[in-house]
């Protein structure tokens, strides 16, 4: 209990600071992944075959390389050409990888929208891009929230890898406490784990709420939570 007070309570601001860095990294990488992943999915479903192959190639590359290796590649490799901070490198490396995963989610839900929806929109005289924007995406994106929640969780955990290129996030802050006190390994990691758990739980609740509030009659997903 004494260790808990002296270590956990006094060090909590630093752990929370680390969590804040992790959450910023998470938000930026998810936004990058969302924009790019959606673009790739649209390219793959509606684009010329060259674009489709480019999208598939991107997906294969970024899903095939371990996150850790991508981080090192961006920090040491890409920065030969453009100067990037460790944080930016982490956003790009993890964000592009997330784009590859998210493009799969989006491609799946776009293709799951019945063909009649596009036909009806085109028959009204809607150009294709307007039909995608007004008709296909609003339906597809609702269905994407469920699988996207998984992506949220796995990327939250992936942020802990960014310490290898010097991003001082939650896990690294935990390490600092362990090394400056030369111990408390279990205690500190238990608290770190609890913080990840809470962040993940809150994020998931928020996404479930969003999913429910956007649910359409006849298309509700049942979730026992």
């Amino acid at each position: 209990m004494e260790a808990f007070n002296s270590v956990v309570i006094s060090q909590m601001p630093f752990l929370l600071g680390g969590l804040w860095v992790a959450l910023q990294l998470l938000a930026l990488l998810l936004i990058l992944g969302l924009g790019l992943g959606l673009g790739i999915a649209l390219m793959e479903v509606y684009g010329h075959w060259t674009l489709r192959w480019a999208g598939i190639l991107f997906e294969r590359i970024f899903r095939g390389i371990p996150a850790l290796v991508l981080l090192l590649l961006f920090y040491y490799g890409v920065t030969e050409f453009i100067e990037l901070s460790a944080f930016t490198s982490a956003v790009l490396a993890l964000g592009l990888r997330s784009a590859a995963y998210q493009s799969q989610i989006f491609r799946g839900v776009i293709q799951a929208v019945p063909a009649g929806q596009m036909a009806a929109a085109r028959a009204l005289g809607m150009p294709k891009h307007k039909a995608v924007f007004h008709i296909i995406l609003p339906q597809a994106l609702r269905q994407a929230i469920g699988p996207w929640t998984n992506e949220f969780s796995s990327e939250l955990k992936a942020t802990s890898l960014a310490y290898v290129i010097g991003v001082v996030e939650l896990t690294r802050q935990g390490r600092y406490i362990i090394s400056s006190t030369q111990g408390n390994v279990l205690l500190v990691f238990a608290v770190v784990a609890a913080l990840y758990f809470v962040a993940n739980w809150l994020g998931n609740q928020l996404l479930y709420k969003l999913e429910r509030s956007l649910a359409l009659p006849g298309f509700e997903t049942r979730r026992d939570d």
Partner: protein
Amino acid sequence: MNMREKLCALISGAALLAVASAPSQSLAQETLTAGVEAAFPPWAYVENGEFKGIAIDAMREIAKDEGLNVEFRDLPWPSLIPALSRGRIDLLVTGLNVTPERAEVLDFTIPWWENDDEVLVPEDSDLNLVTALCCGATVGAQGGATQAQWLEENLADNENVDLAVRTYEDYVIAVEDMLAGRLDSVVTSTDTAESFLANDRPIKIVGTIQQNQPQALAVQKGDPNGLLESLNRGILKLYNDGRWAEIVHRYSPQATIRQIPTTMPDYVDSYHEPIPGYSE
């Protein structure tokens, strides 16, 4: 906008973000980035959000004396030397041992410390200096550190000694694993061992391996930024006016101050005369 235009806008937006967040070139030249492994007391660590340790405090003093603008960046131990050789950091400030392999990829300042290695076992262990390092013992050390390399080359690879080496990302985890019964002993440098004892960890030292291992700061091979002169001059000044002893004893009250420079091995290019900031 059609779909293709939207996509183009998106990609160029991402590129812009990347460029915008890069520090400007002139600023990067003025401020030196010192790489540290901030989980390595007493040399460098973070406490209450602040960089601390012998190497950190000494570097701050040297920077003040020499008019350098230094900022510290924490990187995990295995990343430090690659980061320096790729130019991601300008110098390396930590308890860095001088070794032939490292001397090939980086240049060392004059050595400011000399270390031996200590054999640690749990407080209640019956092992002694010999049994802790033979006869089926599993020994922990930090991956990439000189202790791990020494154990591999001299004991693990020797058929007459039955010993297995297990490497860890840092020493705290290694000691924790030893206390959990997964290791028989841990070999660390003298100052690390003393730091564990100072923190009342339930361990004891059963023996010392005399290494006379010099430690120094390091810069990129060939010293492209011309830092060695300032650093060597700064180290000597710190030593001569007594601030060095003060800093060392702040973190390691029992430590014996060695004369600077300590042993300068012949295999280090930057120890060949004339040594900038030292020979003159």
